Protein backbone atom coordinates (compact mmCIF):
# COMPACT_ATOMS: atom_id res chain seq x y z
CA UNK A 1 0.00 0.00 0.00
CA UNK A 2 1.46 3.32 -1.06
CA UNK A 3 1.16 6.43 1.02
CA UNK A 4 0.44 6.19 4.67
CA UNK A 5 -3.02 7.63 5.05
CA UNK A 6 -4.81 5.23 7.32
CA UNK A 7 -8.45 5.00 8.18
CA UNK A 8 -9.43 5.95 11.69
CA UNK A 9 -13.07 6.58 12.55
CA UNK A 10 -12.30 8.30 15.85
CA UNK A 11 -13.83 11.79 16.17
CA UNK A 12 -11.45 14.54 15.12
CA UNK A 13 -11.26 16.07 18.63
CA UNK A 14 -10.16 12.71 20.11
CA UNK A 15 -7.59 12.23 17.34
CA UNK A 16 -6.30 15.75 17.98
CA UNK A 17 -6.15 14.99 21.70
CA UNK A 18 -3.91 12.01 20.95
CA UNK A 19 -1.84 13.98 18.47
CA UNK A 20 -1.50 16.83 20.98
CA UNK A 21 -0.49 14.38 23.68
CA UNK A 22 2.18 12.91 21.42
CA UNK A 23 3.27 16.41 20.48
CA UNK A 24 3.58 17.24 24.18
CA UNK A 25 5.63 14.06 24.70
CA UNK A 26 7.85 14.85 21.74
CA UNK A 27 8.24 18.53 22.65
CA UNK A 28 8.98 17.68 26.29
CA UNK A 29 11.61 15.19 25.14
CA UNK A 30 13.09 17.78 22.78
CA UNK A 31 12.98 20.47 25.51
CA UNK A 32 14.63 18.20 28.05
CA UNK A 33 17.33 17.30 25.53
CA UNK A 34 17.86 21.02 24.84
CA UNK A 35 17.96 21.78 28.55
CA UNK A 36 20.48 18.99 29.03
CA UNK A 37 22.60 20.30 26.17
CA UNK A 38 22.45 23.85 27.62
CA UNK A 39 23.33 22.56 31.08
CA UNK A 40 26.29 20.66 29.66
CA UNK A 41 27.37 23.74 27.70
CA UNK A 42 27.00 25.93 30.81
CA UNK A 43 29.10 23.46 32.79
CA UNK A 44 31.69 23.44 30.00
CA UNK A 45 31.78 27.24 29.99
CA UNK A 46 32.25 27.21 33.78
CA UNK A 47 35.05 24.65 33.51
CA UNK A 48 36.69 26.65 30.70
CA UNK A 49 36.43 29.90 32.69
CA UNK A 50 37.99 28.17 35.68
CA UNK A 51 40.82 26.81 33.56
CA UNK A 52 41.30 30.25 31.93
CA UNK A 53 41.59 31.84 35.41
CA UNK A 54 44.08 29.15 36.41
CA UNK A 55 46.07 29.73 33.24
CA UNK A 56 46.01 33.50 33.84
CA UNK A 57 47.31 32.97 37.41
CA UNK A 58 49.97 30.59 36.14
CA UNK A 59 50.85 33.11 33.43
CA UNK A 60 51.25 35.89 36.02
CA UNK A 61 53.42 33.60 38.14
CA UNK A 62 55.41 32.65 35.08
CA UNK A 63 55.91 36.33 34.15
CA UNK A 64 57.14 37.21 37.64
CA UNK A 65 59.38 34.13 37.68
CA UNK A 66 60.63 35.04 34.22
CA UNK A 67 61.56 38.56 35.36
CA UNK A 68 63.32 37.03 38.38
CA UNK A 69 65.09 34.54 36.12
CA UNK A 70 66.11 37.34 33.79
CA UNK A 71 67.58 39.23 36.77
CA UNK A 72 69.40 36.11 37.93
CA UNK A 73 70.60 35.42 34.41
CA UNK A 74 72.04 38.93 34.33
CA UNK A 75 73.83 38.27 37.64
CA UNK A 76 75.06 34.91 36.34
CA UNK A 77 76.27 36.53 33.14
CA UNK A 78 78.10 39.20 35.14
CA UNK A 79 79.62 36.53 37.37
CA UNK A 80 80.61 34.47 34.37
CA UNK A 81 82.16 37.52 32.82
CA UNK A 82 84.08 38.14 36.00
CA UNK A 83 85.17 34.50 36.25
CA UNK A 84 86.19 34.50 32.62
CA UNK A 85 88.13 37.71 32.95
CA UNK A 86 89.67 36.43 36.17
CA UNK A 87 90.62 33.04 34.73
CA UNK A 88 91.93 34.68 31.57
CA UNK A 89 94.14 37.10 33.44
CA UNK A 90 95.28 34.95 36.39
CA UNK A 91 96.95 31.66 37.12
CA UNK A 92 94.37 28.92 37.85
CA UNK A 93 95.61 28.19 41.33
CA UNK A 94 92.71 26.01 42.37
CA UNK A 95 93.14 23.74 39.33
CA UNK A 96 96.85 23.60 39.98
CA UNK A 97 96.40 22.50 43.59
CA UNK A 98 93.88 19.96 42.48
CA UNK A 99 96.32 18.59 39.89
CA UNK A 100 99.13 18.41 42.47
CA UNK A 101 97.04 16.09 44.59
CA UNK A 102 95.49 14.05 41.79
CA UNK A 103 98.80 13.30 40.00
CA UNK A 104 100.67 12.55 43.21
CA UNK A 105 101.76 8.88 43.52
CA UNK A 106 100.97 7.10 46.79
CA UNK A 107 104.69 6.87 47.76
CA UNK A 108 105.38 10.56 47.34
CA UNK A 109 104.85 13.21 49.93
CA UNK A 110 104.64 16.94 49.29
CA UNK A 111 106.39 19.07 51.86
CA UNK A 112 105.61 22.55 50.59
CA UNK A 113 104.35 24.62 47.69
CA UNK A 114 105.51 28.23 47.72
CA UNK A 115 106.13 31.15 45.50
CA UNK A 116 109.74 32.12 45.17
CA UNK A 117 109.31 35.66 46.59
CA UNK A 118 107.53 34.28 49.66
CA UNK A 119 110.36 31.87 50.25
CA UNK A 120 112.76 34.75 50.01
CA UNK A 121 110.80 36.80 52.58
CA UNK A 122 110.51 33.82 54.92
CA UNK A 123 114.27 33.48 54.80
CA UNK A 124 114.70 37.12 55.91
CA UNK A 125 112.23 36.74 58.77
CA UNK A 126 114.00 33.65 60.06
CA UNK A 127 117.31 35.54 60.00
CA UNK A 128 115.84 38.43 62.05
CA UNK A 129 114.38 36.04 64.63
CA UNK A 130 117.77 34.40 65.03
CA UNK A 131 119.41 37.94 65.55
CA UNK A 132 117.03 38.70 68.43
CA UNK A 133 117.88 35.52 70.21
CA UNK A 134 121.50 36.52 70.15
CA UNK A 135 120.91 39.38 72.64
CA UNK A 136 118.39 38.16 75.22
CA UNK A 137 119.71 40.11 78.27
CA UNK A 138 118.86 43.64 77.18
CA UNK A 139 117.09 45.96 79.75
CA UNK A 140 113.25 46.23 79.59
CA UNK A 141 113.10 49.89 78.70
CA UNK A 142 115.44 49.73 75.78
CA UNK A 143 113.57 46.46 74.89
CA UNK A 144 110.45 48.47 74.30
CA UNK A 145 112.31 50.74 72.06
CA UNK A 146 113.93 47.80 70.41
CA UNK A 147 110.57 46.21 69.82
CA UNK A 148 109.31 49.39 68.16
CA UNK A 149 112.49 49.51 66.10
CA UNK A 150 112.16 45.82 65.21
CA UNK A 151 108.58 46.32 64.05
CA UNK A 152 109.80 49.17 61.91
CA UNK A 153 112.73 47.09 60.61
CA UNK A 154 110.62 43.93 59.75
CA UNK A 155 109.97 43.59 56.02
CA UNK A 156 106.32 43.65 55.08
CA UNK A 157 104.91 40.26 53.99
CA UNK A 158 103.37 40.49 50.57
CA UNK A 159 101.56 37.63 48.86
CA UNK A 160 101.39 37.63 45.17
CA UNK A 161 97.76 37.41 44.10
CA UNK A 162 98.51 36.09 40.69
CA UNK A 163 101.12 33.41 40.10
CA UNK A 164 101.20 33.71 36.34
CA UNK A 165 104.74 34.12 35.07
CA UNK A 166 105.83 33.52 38.62
CA UNK A 167 107.98 30.69 39.96
CA UNK A 168 106.33 28.17 42.21
CA UNK A 169 108.60 26.03 44.31
CA UNK A 170 107.42 22.53 45.04
CA UNK A 171 109.23 20.49 47.66
CA UNK A 172 108.69 16.92 48.64
CA UNK A 173 110.14 13.47 49.00
CA UNK A 174 109.51 10.07 47.59
CA UNK A 175 110.69 6.54 48.03
CA UNK A 176 111.77 6.13 44.41
CA UNK A 177 113.25 8.52 41.92
CA UNK A 178 111.03 7.02 39.22
CA UNK A 179 107.88 8.11 41.05
CA UNK A 180 109.34 11.58 41.48
CA UNK A 181 110.28 11.88 37.81
CA UNK A 182 106.83 10.62 36.69
CA UNK A 183 105.17 13.14 38.97
CA UNK A 184 107.30 16.03 37.71
CA UNK A 185 106.71 14.91 34.14
CA UNK A 186 102.95 14.91 34.70
CA UNK A 187 103.07 18.38 36.20
CA UNK A 188 105.22 19.69 33.39
CA UNK A 189 102.50 18.72 30.91
CA UNK A 190 99.82 20.75 32.68
CA UNK A 191 98.51 23.41 30.26
CA UNK A 192 98.97 26.26 32.72
CA UNK A 193 102.59 25.35 33.50
CA UNK A 194 104.98 27.13 31.14
CA UNK A 195 108.20 25.56 32.33
CA UNK A 196 109.56 23.10 34.88
CA UNK A 197 113.02 23.23 36.44
CA UNK A 198 114.31 20.57 38.79
CA UNK A 199 116.46 22.36 41.41
CA UNK A 200 117.59 19.38 43.41
CA UNK A 201 117.11 15.71 44.16
CA UNK A 202 119.00 14.51 47.22
CA UNK A 203 118.92 11.32 49.20
CA UNK A 204 118.32 11.73 52.95
CA UNK A 205 117.23 9.63 55.86
CA UNK A 206 113.87 10.37 57.37
CA UNK A 207 112.73 8.19 60.26
CA UNK A 208 115.64 5.93 59.40
CA UNK A 209 114.33 5.45 55.89
CA UNK A 210 116.15 6.39 52.71
CA UNK A 211 114.08 8.90 50.80
CA UNK A 212 114.76 11.24 47.89
CA UNK A 213 114.10 14.87 48.69
CA UNK A 214 113.33 17.00 45.68
CA UNK A 215 112.68 20.59 44.78
CA UNK A 216 111.05 21.65 41.52
CA UNK A 217 110.41 25.15 40.22
CA UNK A 218 107.29 25.49 38.14
CA UNK A 219 106.53 28.59 36.09
CA UNK A 220 102.81 29.44 35.81
CA UNK A 221 100.81 30.65 32.77
CA UNK A 222 97.81 32.95 32.43
CA UNK A 223 94.42 31.30 31.76
CA UNK A 224 94.05 33.20 28.47
CA UNK A 225 97.37 31.79 27.32
CA UNK A 226 96.32 28.15 27.41
CA UNK A 227 92.55 28.21 26.82
CA UNK A 228 91.25 27.66 23.32
Amino acid at each position, binding site marked *: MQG*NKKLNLLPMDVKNKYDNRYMIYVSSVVCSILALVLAVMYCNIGILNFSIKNLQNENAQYTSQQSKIEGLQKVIAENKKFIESYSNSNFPFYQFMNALESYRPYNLTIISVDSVDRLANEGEQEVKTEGETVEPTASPTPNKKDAEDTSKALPKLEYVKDLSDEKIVLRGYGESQEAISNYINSLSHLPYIADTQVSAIEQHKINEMDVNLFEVILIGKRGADFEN
Partner: protein
Amino acid sequence: MDYLVKKNIIKKNKVIIDVGSKYIKLLGVHYANKKITITNAQKIDSSLFFNDNELVNVGELVRNIDRIMSKNKNVEISLSIPTSIVNSKIVSVKNKKVAELAKYIEREHTTFSKVSPLTHIIDYAYLGSREENGDSIHYCLVAAVSKNSVNLILDEFNKRKLKISTISYPIYDLVNLSELYHGDFENMNRLMIDFGVSGTRVVAFYEGVAVYVRDINIGVNTYLEKLFECQESLGKPEIFKLISAVGEMKILTMESLKKLFSSMNKEAYFNIVNEVSSQLAKDIFRIAEMCENNNAAITKIICGGFMIKGFDERLKQNGDMEVESFDLNLLENVSGRDFIVQLGNAHVDSTFNNAIGLAINTFM
Protein backbone atom coordinates in the same frame (compact mmCIF):
# COMPACT_ATOMS: atom_id res chain seq x y z
CA MET B 1 3.06 7.09 17.64
CA ASP B 2 2.52 4.23 15.18
CA TYR B 3 5.26 5.82 13.08
CA LEU B 4 7.76 5.37 15.93
CA VAL B 5 6.70 1.73 16.32
CA LYS B 6 6.95 1.18 12.57
CA LYS B 7 10.45 2.68 12.48
CA ASN B 8 11.49 0.47 15.40
CA ILE B 9 12.17 3.48 17.63
CA ILE B 10 9.84 2.42 20.42
CA LYS B 11 8.21 -0.80 21.57
CA LYS B 12 4.53 -0.90 22.30
CA ASN B 13 1.72 -3.06 23.57
CA LYS B 14 -1.79 -2.78 22.22
CA VAL B 15 -5.08 -4.52 22.73
CA ILE B 16 -7.04 -5.24 19.57
CA ILE B 17 -10.79 -5.61 20.00
CA ASP B 18 -12.93 -6.91 17.15
CA VAL B 19 -16.59 -6.54 18.03
CA GLY B 20 -18.61 -9.16 16.17
CA SER B 21 -22.30 -10.00 16.54
CA LYS B 22 -21.48 -13.47 17.91
CA TYR B 23 -18.11 -12.99 19.57
CA ILE B 24 -15.88 -10.16 20.72
CA LYS B 25 -12.34 -11.13 19.81
CA LEU B 26 -9.53 -9.65 21.95
CA LEU B 27 -5.86 -9.85 21.02
CA GLY B 28 -2.96 -8.77 23.19
CA VAL B 29 -0.26 -7.59 20.82
CA HIS B 30 3.36 -6.58 21.39
CA TYR B 31 5.20 -4.51 18.80
CA ALA B 32 8.98 -4.64 18.90
CA ASN B 33 11.85 -4.95 16.42
CA LYS B 34 9.46 -4.92 13.47
CA LYS B 35 7.67 -7.95 14.88
CA ILE B 36 4.06 -8.27 15.86
CA THR B 37 3.78 -10.85 18.60
CA ILE B 38 0.33 -12.00 19.57
CA THR B 39 0.66 -12.57 23.27
CA ASN B 40 -2.93 -13.25 24.20
CA ALA B 41 -6.19 -14.15 22.47
CA GLN B 42 -9.61 -14.29 24.04
CA LYS B 43 -13.22 -14.49 22.92
CA ILE B 44 -16.31 -13.20 24.69
CA ASP B 45 -19.82 -14.24 23.66
CA SER B 46 -21.42 -11.02 22.46
CA SER B 47 -24.80 -12.32 21.27
CA LEU B 48 -26.41 -10.84 24.41
CA PHE B 49 -25.31 -7.32 23.43
CA PHE B 50 -26.83 -7.56 19.94
CA ASN B 51 -30.42 -7.62 18.80
CA ASP B 52 -31.13 -8.20 15.12
CA ASN B 53 -27.46 -7.50 14.34
CA GLU B 54 -27.76 -4.13 16.09
CA LEU B 55 -25.44 -3.30 18.99
CA VAL B 56 -27.89 -2.47 21.77
CA ASN B 57 -26.06 -2.95 25.03
CA VAL B 58 -22.79 -1.06 24.69
CA GLY B 59 -22.40 -0.55 28.43
CA GLU B 60 -22.50 -4.26 29.18
CA LEU B 61 -20.17 -4.98 26.27
CA VAL B 62 -17.56 -2.52 27.55
CA ARG B 63 -17.97 -3.80 31.11
CA ASN B 64 -17.04 -7.28 29.89
CA ILE B 65 -14.05 -5.91 27.98
CA ASP B 66 -12.97 -3.93 31.06
CA ARG B 67 -13.18 -7.07 33.19
CA ILE B 68 -10.74 -8.83 30.88
CA MET B 69 -8.48 -5.80 30.51
CA SER B 70 -8.36 -4.97 34.22
CA LYS B 71 -4.59 -5.56 34.31
CA ASN B 72 -3.81 -3.61 31.14
CA LYS B 73 -5.87 -0.45 31.53
CA ASN B 74 -3.14 1.86 30.27
CA VAL B 75 -2.67 -0.04 27.03
CA GLU B 76 -3.98 1.60 23.88
CA ILE B 77 -6.97 -0.05 22.25
CA SER B 78 -7.64 -0.51 18.56
CA LEU B 79 -11.31 -1.17 18.08
CA SER B 80 -13.00 -2.79 15.12
CA ILE B 81 -16.70 -1.92 15.10
CA PRO B 82 -19.38 -3.98 13.31
CA THR B 83 -19.80 -3.37 9.57
CA SER B 84 -23.52 -2.86 10.09
CA ILE B 85 -22.91 0.62 11.59
CA VAL B 86 -20.39 1.70 8.96
CA ASN B 87 -21.09 3.01 5.47
CA SER B 88 -18.19 2.64 3.11
CA LYS B 89 -17.17 2.65 -0.52
CA ILE B 90 -14.05 2.49 -2.60
CA VAL B 91 -13.48 5.51 -4.78
CA SER B 92 -11.11 5.65 -7.71
CA VAL B 93 -9.44 8.94 -8.55
CA LYS B 94 -7.82 9.43 -11.91
CA ASN B 95 -4.70 11.49 -12.54
CA LYS B 96 -4.51 13.29 -9.20
CA LYS B 97 -1.51 13.74 -6.98
CA VAL B 98 -1.59 11.78 -3.71
CA ALA B 99 -1.19 15.05 -1.80
CA GLU B 100 -4.37 16.39 -3.42
CA LEU B 101 -6.49 13.35 -2.54
CA ALA B 102 -7.52 14.52 0.93
CA LYS B 103 -9.06 17.73 -0.37
CA TYR B 104 -10.59 15.96 -3.37
CA ILE B 105 -12.28 13.31 -1.21
CA GLU B 106 -13.47 15.91 1.26
CA ARG B 107 -15.04 17.87 -1.60
CA GLU B 108 -16.46 15.03 -3.68
CA HIS B 109 -17.02 11.97 -1.53
CA THR B 110 -18.13 13.00 1.94
CA THR B 111 -21.79 12.90 1.11
CA PHE B 112 -23.07 9.53 -0.03
CA SER B 113 -26.21 7.46 0.74
CA LYS B 114 -27.30 8.77 4.15
CA VAL B 115 -23.85 9.99 5.12
CA SER B 116 -23.26 13.65 5.86
CA PRO B 117 -20.30 15.35 7.56
CA LEU B 118 -22.76 16.89 10.03
CA THR B 119 -23.96 13.56 11.36
CA HIS B 120 -21.09 11.23 10.55
CA ILE B 121 -17.42 10.85 11.20
CA ILE B 122 -15.89 10.40 7.76
CA ASP B 123 -12.36 9.28 7.04
CA TYR B 124 -10.51 7.59 4.24
CA ALA B 125 -7.59 5.27 3.69
CA TYR B 126 -5.29 5.35 0.72
CA LEU B 127 -5.30 1.86 -0.79
CA GLY B 128 -2.85 2.23 -3.64
CA SER B 129 -2.67 3.06 -7.30
CA ARG B 130 -2.27 1.35 -10.64
CA GLU B 131 -1.74 2.39 -14.22
CA GLU B 132 -4.45 1.89 -16.85
CA ASN B 133 -4.22 3.13 -20.43
CA GLY B 134 -1.65 5.71 -19.43
CA ASP B 135 -3.79 6.99 -16.57
CA SER B 136 -2.77 6.78 -12.96
CA ILE B 137 -5.71 5.58 -10.88
CA HIS B 138 -5.65 5.99 -7.12
CA TYR B 139 -7.98 3.98 -4.90
CA CYS B 140 -9.25 5.16 -1.55
CA LEU B 141 -11.59 3.54 0.92
CA VAL B 142 -14.02 6.11 2.28
CA ALA B 143 -15.86 5.09 5.44
CA ALA B 144 -18.37 6.86 7.64
CA VAL B 145 -19.95 6.09 10.96
CA SER B 146 -22.62 8.05 12.74
CA LYS B 147 -21.29 10.34 15.44
CA ASN B 148 -23.94 9.06 17.86
CA SER B 149 -22.80 5.45 17.55
CA VAL B 150 -19.14 6.29 18.02
CA ASN B 151 -19.75 8.70 20.90
CA LEU B 152 -21.88 6.10 22.65
CA ILE B 153 -19.04 3.59 22.42
CA LEU B 154 -16.37 6.14 23.35
CA ASP B 155 -18.33 7.34 26.38
CA GLU B 156 -18.55 3.82 27.76
CA PHE B 157 -14.85 3.23 27.21
CA ASN B 158 -13.98 6.62 28.73
CA LYS B 159 -16.13 5.86 31.79
CA ARG B 160 -13.90 2.87 32.44
CA LYS B 161 -10.73 4.82 31.58
CA LEU B 162 -9.97 2.66 28.59
CA LYS B 163 -8.12 4.52 25.84
CA ILE B 164 -9.17 3.94 22.26
CA SER B 165 -6.61 5.16 19.74
CA THR B 166 -8.03 3.65 16.55
CA ILE B 167 -11.49 2.77 15.30
CA SER B 168 -11.65 0.54 12.25
CA TYR B 169 -14.13 -1.88 10.71
CA PRO B 170 -13.91 -5.40 9.18
CA ILE B 171 -13.52 -4.41 5.51
CA TYR B 172 -10.53 -2.20 6.26
CA ASP B 173 -9.15 -4.96 8.49
CA LEU B 174 -9.36 -7.31 5.50
CA VAL B 175 -7.46 -4.79 3.39
CA ASN B 176 -4.78 -4.66 6.08
CA LEU B 177 -4.68 -8.45 6.30
CA SER B 178 -4.00 -8.62 2.57
CA GLU B 179 -0.56 -7.14 3.37
CA LEU B 180 0.43 -10.68 4.38
CA TYR B 181 -0.09 -11.71 0.71
CA HIS B 182 2.01 -8.89 -0.76
CA GLY B 183 4.52 -11.43 -2.07
CA ASP B 184 1.96 -13.63 -3.83
CA PHE B 185 2.69 -12.19 -7.26
CA GLU B 186 0.99 -15.09 -9.07
CA ASN B 187 -2.33 -14.13 -7.52
CA MET B 188 -2.37 -10.36 -7.63
CA ASN B 189 -6.06 -10.52 -8.63
CA ARG B 190 -7.76 -12.14 -5.69
CA LEU B 191 -10.79 -12.05 -3.42
CA MET B 192 -10.50 -11.86 0.32
CA ILE B 193 -13.61 -13.00 2.09
CA ASP B 194 -14.53 -12.56 5.73
CA PHE B 195 -17.39 -14.84 6.68
CA GLY B 196 -19.21 -13.21 9.55
CA VAL B 197 -22.19 -14.21 11.60
CA SER B 198 -24.40 -11.43 10.31
CA GLY B 199 -22.90 -11.02 6.85
CA THR B 200 -20.03 -11.79 4.51
CA ARG B 201 -17.51 -9.16 3.47
CA VAL B 202 -15.73 -9.48 0.14
CA VAL B 203 -12.82 -7.36 -1.01
CA ALA B 204 -11.59 -7.69 -4.58
CA PHE B 205 -7.93 -6.94 -5.31
CA TYR B 206 -6.75 -6.02 -8.77
CA GLU B 207 -3.00 -6.02 -9.27
CA GLY B 208 -2.65 -6.15 -5.50
CA VAL B 209 -4.79 -3.03 -4.89
CA ALA B 210 -8.21 -3.25 -3.28
CA VAL B 211 -10.61 -1.96 -5.93
CA TYR B 212 -14.01 -3.24 -4.86
CA VAL B 213 -15.77 -4.10 -1.60
CA ARG B 214 -19.10 -5.76 -1.04
CA ASP B 215 -20.98 -6.67 2.10
CA ILE B 216 -23.17 -9.70 1.29
CA ASN B 217 -26.15 -9.99 3.56
CA ILE B 218 -25.67 -13.71 4.14
CA GLY B 219 -23.89 -14.99 7.21
CA VAL B 220 -24.11 -17.74 9.79
CA ASN B 221 -27.25 -16.08 11.13
CA THR B 222 -28.94 -16.64 7.73
CA TYR B 223 -28.41 -20.40 8.09
CA LEU B 224 -29.49 -20.17 11.71
CA GLU B 225 -32.71 -18.27 11.04
CA LYS B 226 -33.76 -20.52 8.18
CA LEU B 227 -33.04 -23.71 10.12
CA PHE B 228 -34.86 -22.29 13.16
CA GLU B 229 -37.90 -21.50 11.01
CA CYS B 230 -37.87 -25.10 9.79
CA GLN B 231 -37.32 -26.71 13.20
CA GLU B 232 -38.43 -24.40 15.98
CA SER B 233 -38.35 -27.21 18.53
CA LEU B 234 -34.57 -27.11 18.38
CA GLY B 235 -33.19 -24.04 20.08
CA LYS B 236 -30.91 -21.56 18.30
CA PRO B 237 -27.84 -22.52 20.38
CA GLU B 238 -28.24 -26.15 19.35
CA ILE B 239 -28.68 -25.19 15.69
CA PHE B 240 -25.58 -22.98 15.91
CA LYS B 241 -23.70 -25.93 17.41
CA LEU B 242 -24.93 -28.12 14.54
CA ILE B 243 -23.88 -25.62 11.86
CA SER B 244 -20.46 -25.22 13.49
CA ALA B 245 -19.90 -28.95 13.74
CA VAL B 246 -21.45 -30.19 10.51
CA GLY B 247 -21.63 -27.32 8.06
CA GLU B 248 -21.99 -28.76 4.59
CA MET B 249 -20.20 -32.04 5.37
CA LYS B 250 -22.56 -34.88 4.62
CA ILE B 251 -20.30 -37.62 5.97
CA LEU B 252 -21.12 -38.00 9.62
CA THR B 253 -19.08 -40.40 11.70
CA MET B 254 -19.31 -39.15 15.23
CA GLU B 255 -22.12 -40.49 17.38
CA SER B 256 -22.65 -37.10 18.98
CA LEU B 257 -23.33 -35.54 15.59
CA LYS B 258 -25.73 -38.26 14.68
CA LYS B 259 -27.52 -37.55 17.94
CA LEU B 260 -27.92 -33.91 16.92
CA PHE B 261 -29.97 -35.00 13.96
CA SER B 262 -32.29 -36.96 16.18
CA SER B 263 -34.33 -33.81 16.64
CA MET B 264 -33.61 -32.25 13.25
CA ASN B 265 -34.53 -33.58 9.87
CA LYS B 266 -31.21 -34.28 8.22
CA GLU B 267 -32.55 -33.87 4.71
CA ALA B 268 -34.23 -30.60 5.52
CA TYR B 269 -31.00 -29.38 7.19
CA PHE B 270 -28.85 -30.09 4.15
CA ASN B 271 -31.46 -28.62 1.81
CA ILE B 272 -31.50 -25.35 3.76
CA VAL B 273 -27.72 -25.24 4.12
CA ASN B 274 -27.33 -25.99 0.43
CA GLU B 275 -29.81 -23.27 -0.47
CA VAL B 276 -28.08 -20.59 1.61
CA SER B 277 -24.57 -21.68 0.59
CA SER B 278 -25.58 -21.67 -3.07
CA GLN B 279 -26.90 -18.14 -2.73
CA LEU B 280 -23.70 -17.03 -0.99
CA ALA B 281 -21.46 -18.78 -3.51
CA LYS B 282 -23.49 -17.27 -6.34
CA ASP B 283 -22.92 -13.79 -4.96
CA ILE B 284 -19.22 -14.46 -4.58
CA PHE B 285 -18.92 -15.80 -8.13
CA ARG B 286 -20.87 -12.82 -9.43
CA ILE B 287 -18.18 -10.56 -7.92
CA ALA B 288 -15.48 -12.72 -9.53
CA GLU B 289 -17.33 -12.54 -12.83
CA MET B 290 -17.63 -8.78 -12.59
CA CYS B 291 -13.87 -8.58 -11.99
CA GLU B 292 -13.25 -10.82 -14.98
CA ASN B 293 -15.42 -8.57 -17.13
CA ASN B 294 -13.16 -5.70 -16.08
CA ASN B 295 -10.05 -7.62 -17.23
CA ALA B 296 -9.18 -8.62 -13.65
CA ALA B 297 -9.70 -12.36 -13.66
CA ILE B 298 -9.61 -13.59 -10.07
CA THR B 299 -7.15 -16.44 -9.52
CA LYS B 300 -7.40 -16.94 -5.80
CA ILE B 301 -9.95 -16.71 -3.03
CA ILE B 302 -8.71 -16.30 0.53
CA CYS B 303 -11.32 -17.20 3.12
CA GLY B 304 -11.39 -16.35 6.78
CA GLY B 305 -13.79 -15.79 9.61
CA PHE B 306 -16.70 -18.02 10.45
CA MET B 307 -16.81 -20.13 7.27
CA ILE B 308 -19.03 -23.20 7.61
CA LYS B 309 -17.35 -26.53 7.00
CA GLY B 310 -17.26 -27.62 3.37
CA PHE B 311 -18.02 -24.19 1.89
CA ASP B 312 -14.47 -23.90 0.58
CA GLU B 313 -15.02 -27.16 -1.31
CA ARG B 314 -18.10 -25.64 -2.93
CA LEU B 315 -16.01 -22.64 -4.05
CA LYS B 316 -13.35 -24.97 -5.43
CA GLN B 317 -15.86 -27.12 -7.36
CA ASN B 318 -17.71 -24.26 -8.96
CA GLY B 319 -14.79 -22.14 -10.07
CA ASP B 320 -11.33 -22.25 -11.55
CA MET B 321 -9.92 -20.34 -8.64
CA GLU B 322 -7.50 -21.48 -5.97
CA VAL B 323 -9.19 -21.39 -2.56
CA GLU B 324 -7.21 -20.91 0.64
CA SER B 325 -8.42 -20.72 4.21
CA PHE B 326 -6.31 -18.27 6.15
CA ASP B 327 -5.24 -19.72 9.46
CA LEU B 328 -2.32 -18.16 11.30
CA ASN B 329 -1.70 -21.40 13.22
CA LEU B 330 -0.98 -23.30 9.99
CA LEU B 331 1.51 -20.76 8.64
CA GLU B 332 5.13 -20.83 9.74
CA ASN B 333 6.37 -17.48 8.52
CA VAL B 334 3.80 -14.77 8.20
CA SER B 335 5.34 -11.54 7.09
CA GLY B 336 4.43 -8.25 5.54
CA ARG B 337 6.73 -5.94 3.59
CA ASP B 338 8.89 -5.04 6.58
CA PHE B 339 7.45 -6.87 9.55
CA ILE B 340 6.77 -10.36 10.85
CA VAL B 341 3.69 -11.68 12.63
CA GLN B 342 4.44 -14.18 15.37
CA LEU B 343 2.20 -16.22 17.57
CA GLY B 344 3.21 -16.18 21.20
CA ASN B 345 1.52 -18.57 23.54
CA ALA B 346 -1.88 -17.58 22.22
CA HIS B 347 -4.00 -19.76 19.99
CA VAL B 348 -5.93 -17.90 17.32
CA ASP B 349 -8.45 -19.49 14.96
CA SER B 350 -9.70 -18.08 11.66
CA THR B 351 -12.31 -15.90 13.40
CA PHE B 352 -9.46 -13.66 14.64
CA ASN B 353 -8.56 -12.63 11.08
CA ASN B 354 -10.03 -9.14 11.37
CA ALA B 355 -8.28 -8.58 14.68
CA ILE B 356 -4.98 -9.67 13.10
CA GLY B 357 -5.67 -7.28 10.20
CA LEU B 358 -6.22 -4.45 12.67
CA ALA B 359 -3.02 -5.40 14.50
CA ILE B 360 -1.14 -5.15 11.20
CA ASN B 361 -2.62 -1.66 10.63
CA THR B 362 0.01 -0.20 12.99
CA PHE B 363 2.75 -1.20 10.53
CA MET B 364 0.94 0.08 7.44
